[in-house]
């Protein structure tokens, strides 16, 4: 989409805000609608928009598949390890009460951590699936449609 000047300029302006909004949905998830999954798909949509406008090759340079492939299991691991941390501190698996002195503080820490784990996995899996798909398809020309 090299010659779509309007699309390129508008996307360039919008992508930082989409990512910022995704992070807001992530870290404000305790107070407003949203959470790890929603934030993850919003940020992944920003990555996909970038790849659509600037090409998959450039997107792969910015969002390296190798790093994304590490992030995906890291998210699941973060979630699972939070459970084990609660177990180690004396509670049940995923019982966040034990993560801090105070039950409520423990819950807050636990929820933030596992939501961040979900976020990592969702962002990287969505972006990886798109990049894998885009790697298979042919370059789309405008008159193809």
């Amino acid at each position, binding site marked *: 989409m090299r010659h779509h000047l309007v699309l390129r300029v508008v996307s360039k302006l919008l992508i930082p805000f989409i990512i910022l909004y995704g992070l807001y*949905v992530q870290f404000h*998830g*305790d*107070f*407003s*609608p*949203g*959470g*790890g*999954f*929603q934030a993850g*798909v*919003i940020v*992944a*949509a920003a990555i*996909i928009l970038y790849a*659509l406008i600037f090409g998959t090759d450039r997107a792969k340079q910015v969002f390296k598949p190798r790093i994304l*492939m590490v992030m*995906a*299991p890291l*998210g*699941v691991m973060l*979630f*699972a390890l939070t*459970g084990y941390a609660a177990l180690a501190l004396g509670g049940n698996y*995923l019982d*966040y009460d034990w993560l801090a002195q105070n*039950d*409520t503080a423990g*819950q*807050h820490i*636990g*929820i933030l951590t*596992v*939501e961040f*784990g*979900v976020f990592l*996995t*969702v962002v*990287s*899996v*969505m972006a*990886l*699936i*798109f990049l*894998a*798909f*885009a*790697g*298979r*398809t*042919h370059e*789309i020309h405008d008159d*193809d*449609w």
Partner: protein
Amino acid sequence: MELLINTVLLGLLGITAIAILMTRHLFVATMLSGGYSLTSAALLVSLDAVDVAFTEAAVGAGVSTVLMLGTLTLTRRREKVQKEFRWSPLLVVTVTGALLIYGTVDMPAFGDPNAPALLHIVPEYIAGTRDDIQIPNIVTAILASYRGYDTLGETAVIFTAGVGVLLLLGRRREEDEEAGTRRPERDA
């Protein structure tokens, strides 16, 4: 006012669905299904399910439309025309639809606080979120804390799906071309 909005949105959904059924052009069908997702997201907002609306807008209207377009570049643009009309699928769909509508007759009214599903454990969650967890968003409290196991499982499912897709499609095209396993170019 709410009734008007819901009627308009549901009407739009119906029109879009029929248009998707009628068109034979797959590009048009893909774009329409993106529009369908966006309209459902609006409907979910009016039902106060903003979390689901987020997901529907981002995944349904955004990511999956793009993936469908990517698939379209690998296949034909037009659906194969089926000449003969078959009665049995229509019959199955009509009967299933009628049964589903019959099932809704017994359902509690929308937002009914005395609905059985809301009387079982939900009061405990609401009180616990207020007193123990102390965060305003009950949905987050239930998803991440009370139903932590479920969410852990869901995250693992997403991860597994990603691994599966990467195993199937992860190899780059050039590698396939070098190995000579790629299908020949489709005729335009």
